[in-house]
């Protein structure tokens, strides 16, 4: 009966201990949440929000620009096409074009009916004209034929470039001879000053992608708890023509932060500090594993306390009984 009584008392103590452990843990969690809130607040600074706004506004402009560029039509190319396809004995006196409708109305004079029919056939054969309608023709007093034509255009006509006769080709027309400096391009001798780490990943399962802060030149990597951070080989992607030290895919000890130095082609340097944090994998899964740990510790503590108290009271009782027995024997 004594053993049960002491066990129950120990259980009571353990229960109170468990409660206190939870209170303490909850307090610590509260602190952790406060810290995380502070960290979250510190991420979206005014400067970063301004950068975000700029990026989004430019992204929108770039998208609009891309759409317009795709739809852009070079209407002047029509003239080059007509100059190339008009026969020498045909003249146009009226020109009217609606780019959106893709239609041209032409009024003109042909030397003869034969010239007009050859002109119509020539236009019909062209890949840039989808339809030719001869609206009317009449022989004038001079024997020449007045006509009106309706042309339906293929949209690719707006990209038409008339071929130049070889004699008219000048060095300026040949892109190979264009001086790049005149076009605002850099001469090939100018060395690149690009020296950024573009990506920094750890080939774990699942892969850990480093968060690169280009302003502060820091790289943060969150690996799952229990990962051996003393032997990690990051895969590093850097700016073209730059080099990095220590090189990519070489094992490093990330117990403390590791500094990576990127050298640009022009010799300039930039340092990045890579930090690996071992964190729980997040969500309920990590919560339950931590809980299991706490409960296990609580149970162990409770069992130890129960055994210790039971043993203590048992020995105390035993010594008391012995003392009584000795006193009884003495009497």
């Amino acid at each position: 009966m004594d053993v049960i009584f002491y066990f129950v008392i120990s259980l009571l103590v353990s229960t109170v201990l468990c409660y206190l452990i939870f209170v303490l843990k909850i307090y610590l969690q509260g602190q952790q949440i406060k810290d995380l809130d502070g960290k979250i607040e510190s991420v979206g600074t005014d400067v970063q929000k301004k950068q975000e706004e700029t990026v989004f506004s430019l992204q929108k402009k770039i998208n609009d620009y891309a759409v317009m560029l795709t739809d852009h039509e070079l209407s002047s190319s029509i003239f080059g096409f007509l100059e190339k396809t008009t026969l020498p004995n045909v003249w146009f006196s009226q020109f009217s074009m609606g780019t959106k409708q893709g239609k041209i109305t032409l009024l003109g004079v042909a030397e003869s009916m034969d010239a007009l029919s050859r002109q119509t056939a020539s236009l019909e054969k062209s890949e840039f004209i989808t339809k030719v309608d001869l609206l009317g023709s009449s022989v004038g007093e001079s024997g020449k034929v007045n006509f009106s034509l309706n042309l339906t255009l293929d949209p690719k006509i707006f990209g038409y470039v008339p071929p130049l006769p070889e004699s008219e080709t000048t060095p300026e027309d040949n892109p190979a001879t264009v001086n790049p400096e005149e076009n605002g391009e850099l001469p090939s001798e100018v060395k690149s000053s690009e020296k950024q780490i573009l990506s920094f990943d750890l080939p774990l399962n699942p892969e850990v992608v480093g968060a690169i802060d280009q302003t502060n030149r820091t790289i943060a990597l969150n690996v799952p708890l229990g990962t051996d951070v003393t032997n990690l080989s990051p895969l590093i992607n850097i700016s073209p023509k730059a080099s990095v030290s220590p090189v990519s895919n070489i094992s490093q000890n990330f117990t403390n932060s590791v500094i990576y130095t990127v050298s640009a082609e022009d010799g300039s340097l930039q340092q990045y500090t890579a930090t690996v944090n071992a964190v729980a994998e997040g969500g309920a899964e990590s919560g339950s594993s931590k809980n299991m740990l706490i409960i296990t510790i609580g149970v162990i503590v409770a069992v130890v306390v129960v055994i210790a108290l039971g043993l203590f009271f048992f020995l105390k009782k035993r010594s008391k009984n012995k003392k009584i027995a000795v006193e009884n024997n003495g009497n």
Partner: protein
Amino acid sequence: MEIDRPIATAVILFVILLLIFFLVVPKYHQFQSMQQKIGEKQAEYDAKFAYYSEVNKIYEQLEARKDVVEKINGAIPSSTAFGPLVYFFQKIGIENGLIVRGLYLSKVSSASIGSDVKEIIFSLDLLGSYAALKSFLASLENSARFFETSNISFGSSATSAQTQASLAAGGAAPKTSVAPQILQIYPFKLEIKTYSY
């Protein structure tokens, strides 16, 4: 005073149950929810950090291509200012040998439903040679700002065959008559479309 141990044991067990039910279990649930909250906050922080890192990366890439960004800004300006446009048409008209006889603002409307881009349409009455018109159109097409010629119409007002011939396409006409044809003056009507925010 001697305690009745069986009764004390029962009372203590009852107290333990009460403690577990009213104190330990609620705290355990609170602990669990806090743990979940920490996981969520950590994920939120990681996501926010990664997001702003990415934004920063893109921003730096855009900064590195400032010249291209300037070109895009020039192609679609952020304000609908008509003054510079009128000046521009006058300037390139003169540069290419055309006289701007009339310039009318036809329409300002949204380029498409839900778009911030405005479509500005101008009607232009020009006077000059065919070669000058081609040069004028080339200048518009090569301009940093987006211009699209939606309508072109012109014609000879004279009735004689010789005058009509002057409108013949330069490349196709007999070589001997090309020069005088190109110098002939015609009235042109153009509808030009440009964009802004």
